[in-house]
C-alpha cells in the first residue's frame, strides 16, 4: 500500500484509543502503547507498522514529517512515543525531534540506515531517547515502552524534587510514600496506587516505575508560555533558575512546578547543547551547526568578542564559534552590570515580542552620547574590513538562508505556533536577497556586538533567543534563516525603542538594531565612528531597495517612529554595509531588503512575509525605521524618491550623528 504525499495512516486496529495507554489493562502492558512512526520510505514504514502491530502497539504511520507534526499537535495526548527516520525529504528528522520534544514532550526514537557515530551522537544531543539502526528488528521495537516510562518517571521526579536536571540514573522505583505525598492530584495519586497494585501482580521481569501509571496532563508550551518561561529564567539567571521560582515569576494559573521543571530541563539541555556545540568543532556540531548557524551564534554569542575573530573565520567554523562563545561566556559575568539594561530587553525576547519599545534602552541611548541617537545602531566596529568580512560571511549565510527557507518557514512556524506565517516568511525570504541581507546583518551585528561589552546581556538574551529558535537551530540544513529570523526578531524588538525610524521589516534590521541598542548601552565612542558609514550604508540600501519593500508603509512607519529618535542599530549597521557596497548597490541590497518591509512600530506585519515578523506577533518595528533612514535607497520608487528627499535632508544630520534631527522630520510620510 502506498501512502500519498503527506498521508497519515491510522493504526491498523482501526480504533484509536484516545485515553492514555496506561489506562489499558495492565496485564497486557505495554500493549496499546500509542506509537507514531514517521518515515518517507514506504517499504520501511510498512514493515515497522507491522512489527509494531505485532508488538500489540497502536500504530499510526506517516510518511511526512509535517503531517506527523500536525497530527501530534492536533492530538496532544494522543501518542506516547514517536519513531522517526533521520533522513526525510521535507524535514530533517532531528528537527522533528526538536519540535516534538519542545512542544509535546514525547520520547522520540530516531532510526536510520546510517550508523556513523556522528549521526548517532547528533541523535543524543538532540534529545532522542534512542537510536535504531536499520534494518530494524522487531526485538528492538518490543522494548520501546521503556522510554515512555522513563520519561514519565523523570517528569514525576522533577515535580518531587524540583530539580531541573533529574539524574538519569535515578531510581526507577519510586517509593509509595513519596508518591503519595507528591501526588498533585487525587486522580494521579489514585491511578498510581491502583496501577501500582496492578503492576505488582503483573508478571514482569523488570520493575516498573510507579510513575508510569500517572498520566499527567500535557502542558502545551505555547509561544507565549515559553516566552514567559524564558523571561522568568532570564530574570533569575540561568544558573539560579529553579522551577519553583520560575513558576512564581511566570504566575500562570494551572501550571505546576513539575511542568516547569521538565521544561526547564529540556531548556537547559538545549542551551547546553547549543553552547556545547561550538566547543566541539569536529563533533556532532558539524552536522547541524552549519555555517548559517555559526552566523547566528555569532549574533548571539559574539557580543563582546572581537570582530576579528569573526572576520578571520568568515564562515565561522565551530572553532571560532567556540572561541566567541567562550569569550562571550567568559565575559558575561563581568558584564553583569552593563547588561542590566539589557535584561529588561531580554525579557521582551520572545516569540511574540509584542512590545516594540524599550523605554529603558531608549533612555539610555538618548542619554548617552548625543551622537549616539543615530548611532545606536551603528556598529562601532564597522569598518571596511569588517564589512567586507561580513559580506563574505553574509554571502555564505545568505546562501544558506536560501536553502533553509523552507525549513525556516517550517521551523519558525512551528516554533512560533504560527503556521500561517510560513508563507509570508517565504515571501520575505524570497523577496529579500535571501539571506545575503540577513547574513550581512548578522555579520554586521556580530561585529558590532563584538565591539560591545554586553556579552552577559546578550548571552542571556541569546539564551532567550536560543530558546526561541530552538526548533530551527537544530536542523542540520541551513538553519541560518530561522535562526536569523529569530534573532532578528528579537533584536528588532529591542531596537524598537531606540530606533523608531527604522522601518525595515526584515528581522535582520531588528536584530541589528537590537544589537546596536545593546552596544549603545555599553557603547563607547567608537560607535560614533560607525555612524557615517552606517548612514552611507543605509543610503545604499535605499537605493538598492527591493521591490518587495513596503515603501508605502515607510512613510507611515516613519510617522510612527517620529516619537523615538533612536536609530536602530541595525539601520546603522546596514548603512555601514551599504556604504561598503555603494558601488554595487543594485546588486546587493541585502540589508535594504532586511529593512525593506517598512513597518509600523507596533504590530505591523512585515510585508516581507514576516519570516521574522510573522513569527512574532508584533512586527519588527526596527525594520520600518531603517527604511526611513535611507531614503536614498528607495530611489527606485516613488517612495524612493520621497525618501531620497529625506535622505538629503538627512545628510547634514548624518554628520552630526544625530538622527534625531533629521530622520523623523524629514522622512516622508
Amino acid at each position, binding site marked *: 500500500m502506498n501512502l500519498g504525499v503527506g498521508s497519515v495512516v491510522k493504526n491498523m486496529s482501526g480504533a484509536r484509543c484516545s485515553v492514555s495507554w496506561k489506562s489499558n489493562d495492565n496485564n497486557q502492558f505495554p500493549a496499546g502503547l500509542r506509537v507514531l512512526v514517521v518515515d*518517507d*520510505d514506504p*517499504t*520501511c514504514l510498512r514493515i515497522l507498522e*507491522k512489527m509494531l502491530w505485532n508488538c500489540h502497539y497502536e500504530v499510526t504511520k506517516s510518511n511526512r514529517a509535517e503531517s506527523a507534526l500536525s497530527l501530534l499537535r492536533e492530538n496532544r495526548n494522543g501518542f506516547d512515543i514517536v519513531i522517526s527516520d533521520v533522513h526525510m525529504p521535507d524535514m530533517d528528522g532531528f528537527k522533528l525531534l526538536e519540535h516534538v520534544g519542545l512542544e509535546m514532550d514525547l520520547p522520540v526514537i530516531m532510526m536510520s540506515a546510517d550508523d556513523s557515530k556522528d549521526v548517532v551522537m547528533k541523535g543524543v544531543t538532540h534529545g532522542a531517547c534512542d537510536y535504531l539502526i*536499520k*534494518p*530494524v528488528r522487531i526485538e528492538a521495537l518490543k522494548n520501546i515502552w521503556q522510554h515512555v516510562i522513563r520519561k514519565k518517571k523523570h517528569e514525576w521526579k522533577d515535580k518531587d524534587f524540583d530539580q531541573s536536571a533529574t539524574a538519569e540514573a535515578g531510581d526507577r522505583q519510586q517509593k509509595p510514600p513519596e508518591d503519595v505525598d507528591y501526588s498533585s492530584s487525587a486522580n494521579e495519586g489514585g491511578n498510581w496506587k491502583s496501577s501500582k497494585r496492578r503492576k505488582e501482580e503483573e508478571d514482569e521481569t523488570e520493575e516498573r516505575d510507579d510513575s508510569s501509571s500517572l498520566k499527567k496532563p500535557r502542558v502545551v508550551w505555547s509561544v507565549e508560555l515559553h516566552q514567559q518561561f524564558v523571561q522568568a529564567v532570564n530574570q533569575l539567571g540561568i544558573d539560579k533558575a529553579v522551577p519553583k521560582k520560575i513558576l512564581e515569576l511566570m504566575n500562570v494559573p494551572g501550571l505546576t512546578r513539575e511542568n516547569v521543571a521538565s521544561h526547564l530541563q529540556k531548556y537547559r539541555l538545549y542551551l547546553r547543547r547549543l553552547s556545547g556545540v561550538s566547543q566541539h568543532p569536529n563533533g556532532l556540531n558539524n552536522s547541524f551547526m552549519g555555517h548559517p548557524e555559526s552566523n547566528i551564534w555569532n549574533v548571539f554569542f559574539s557580543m563582546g568578542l572581537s570582530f576579528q575573530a569573526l572576520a578571520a573565520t568568515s564562515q565561522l567554523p565551530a572553532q571560532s564559534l567556540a572561541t566567541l562563545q567562550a569569550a562571550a561566556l567568559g565575559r558575561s559575568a563581568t558584564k553583569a552590570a552593563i547588561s542590566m539594561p539589557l535584561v529588561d530587553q531580554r525579557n521582551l525576547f520572545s516569540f511574540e515580542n509584542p512590545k516594540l519599545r524599550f523605554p529603558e534602552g531608549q533612555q539610555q541611548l538618548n542619554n548617552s552620547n548625543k551622537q549616539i541617537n543615530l548611532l545606536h545602531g551603528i556598529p562601532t566596529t564597522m569598518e571596511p574590513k569588517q564589512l567586507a568580512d561580513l559580506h563574505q560571511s553574509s554571502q555564505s549565510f545568505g546562501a544558506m538562508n536560501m536553502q533553509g527557507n523552507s525549513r525556516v518557514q517550517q521551523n519558525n512556524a512551528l516554533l512560533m505556533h504560527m503556521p500561517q506565517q510560513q508563507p509570508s516568511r517565504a515571501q520575505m525570504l524570497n523577496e529579500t536577497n535571501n539571506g545575503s541581507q540577513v547574513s550581512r546583518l548578522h555579520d554586521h551585528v556580530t561585529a558590532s556586538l563584538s565591539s560591545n561589552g554586553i556579552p552577559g546581556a546578550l548571552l542571556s538574551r541569546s539564551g532567550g533567543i536560543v530558546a526561541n529558535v530552538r526548533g530551527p537551530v537544530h536542523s542540520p540544513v541551513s538553519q541560518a534563516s530561522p535562526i536569523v529570523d529569530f534573532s532578528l526578531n528579537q533584536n528588532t524588538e529591542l531596537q524598537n525603542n531606540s530606533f523608531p525610524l527604522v522601518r525595515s521589516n526584515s528581522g535582520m534590521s531588528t536584530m541589528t538594531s537590537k544589537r546596536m541598542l545593546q552596544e549603545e548601552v555599553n557603547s563607547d565612542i567608537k560607535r560614533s565612528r560607525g555612524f557615517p558609514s552606517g548612514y552611507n550604508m543605509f543610503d545604499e540600501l535605499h537605493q538598492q531597495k527591493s521591490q518587495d519593500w513596503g515603501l508605502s508603509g515607510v512613510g507611515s512607519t516613519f510617522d510612527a517612529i517620529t516619537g523615538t529618535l533612536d536609530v536602530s542599530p541595525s539601520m546603522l549597521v546596514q548603512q555601514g554595509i551599504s556604504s561598503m557596497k555603494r558601488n554595487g548597490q543594485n546588486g546587493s541590497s541585502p540589508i535594504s531588503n532586511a529593512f525593506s518591509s517598512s513597518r509600523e512600530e507596533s504590530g505591523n506585519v512585515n510585508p516581507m512575509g514576516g519570516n521574522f515578523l510573522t513569527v512574532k506577533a508584533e512586527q519588527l518595528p526596527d525594520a520600518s525605521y531603517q527604511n526611513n533612514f535611507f531614503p536614498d535607497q528607495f530611489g527606485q520608487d516613488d517612495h524612493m524618491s520621497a525618501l531620497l528627499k529625506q535622505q538629503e535632508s538627512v545628510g547634514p544630520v548624518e554628520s552630526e550623528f544625530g538622527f534625531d534631527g533629521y530622520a523623523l522630520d524629514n522622512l516622508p510620510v
Partner: protein
Amino acid sequence: MEVGQLQRSFIEYMGSLFNEGFLDAQFSQLQQLQDESNPDFVVEVVSLFFEDSERLLNDLTMALDQPNVDFKLVDAHVHQLKGSSSSIGAQRVKNCCVPFRNVCEEQNTEACLRCLQQIKQEYLLVKNKLQTLFELEQQIVAAGGAIPMMQ
C-alpha cells in the same frame, strides 16, 4: 506438478537465495511477520520495495546524467536505497550501496556510474528471484498446498 514437489522446489529455491546472498536474515523477519491477519505481507512489502527502488534508480540515473552532478542528492538516494533494501533483506543490493556512497563522497562521477550499473544489475537479479519465488508460492497455493515456513 504435485504439491509436494512444488513445496520442495520452493524450499530449495529459497535456500539458494539465502546461500547466494540475495536475501539475508531480515527477509526471514518479514516472513515471520506474516500471519493470518496479513497473509500477503511479504508480497506487499516486496512490491513496495520494487516500486520504490525503481523510482530511486531512475532518480539516480537522472541525477548522474546531469552536467553538474549533485552528489548530495545522489548520496541521499543511495542512502534511501540502502535503507529500503536492508529492510527487506535484499543483501546484495544493500551491499552495493556502501561503495556507492563512498564514491559519491569522492564526487567521482565515473565511479558513481559504475556503481549505479552494478546496483541496477543486482536489483534486477533479486527482483527476478523474488518474483520466481512468489510464483512458486502461488503455484503451491493453487495446488492446494501450504507454503513451507523457512527457518
